């Protein structure tokens, strides 16, 4: 039974990034917490999001080849010789 004040699951799943960033104002946060405690679907969705973040966090950035950084090393050395 949905009252106007109650969040629907469809709304909750769009708030989960804000929720994990602690960017939800207090009154709404309390409603969201209550919903997540009571709703198996939304707590599974929150878990999916957390795991998505965790898997993404295991990726690594491809490095730029060392020789392509040499022009920047030259910038640094030129700067250093001017300032010291």
């Amino acid at each position, binding site marked *: 039974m949905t009252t106007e004040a109650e969040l629907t699951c469809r709304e909750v799943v769009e708030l989960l990034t804000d929720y994990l960033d602690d960017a939800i104002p207090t009154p709404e946060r309390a409603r969201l917490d209550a919903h997540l405690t009571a709703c198996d679907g939304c707590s599974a969705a929150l*878990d999916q999001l957390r795991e998505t973040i965790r898997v993404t966090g295991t990726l690594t950035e491809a490095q730029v080849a060392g020789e392509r950084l040499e022009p920047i090393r030259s910038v640094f050395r030129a700067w250093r010789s001017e300032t010291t």
Partner: protein
Amino acid sequence: MDGDTPYATDLALVERLRAGDEDAFMALVERLQPSMLRVARMFVSTQAVAEECVQECWLGVLTGLGKFEGRSSLRTWIFRILTNIAKTRGQREGRSVPFASLAGDDLDAPSYDPTTFLGEGEAAAGHWSSLPNDWRSIPEERLLSSETRAVVAGVLASLPPMQAEVLRLRDVAGWTSDEVRNALDLTETNQRVLLHRARAKVRRALDGYLRDEA
């Protein structure tokens, strides 16, 4: 972040740079370069121009080190210099890049298929019609396997550039939301919407891939 001086480590690094520590500088360059090249490339026409922007940025960073006060993180400060340079350069090239072309035109799209929820007119409209898969039963080695990670990498490669970069900086590199929005000159709302959309697409792809295991 450590208490009252969140960017104390950065101030220490700046001191080493000012003292001419080449190893410290090159380590920083190595860490930030891939992302800097991608960000510059969003605003200018070619990879070569993007590389020039990044080089100009590093010179600006070095000559401006005395102005860094630790009010933002060093990497945020560097990216602000970079986005200013790249945007100016893009404008000079007569290239105007609408925000939507970087951010994607799907920012309002729902995270889950709308049919996952009960429709209007039904009792409990907007609640789950079928519950999401429970990933908690997926073995850890499957979840973090190289195949699963390749799925994420594939989505990342297909995202609109600004969605991809926000996701990389937040979830791969571990930057805070404040750092990312300042670095990329985004509003707080846009940063979160971009992140949420990007994560939603990764989640959806993972769910499709992992479904057999759930």
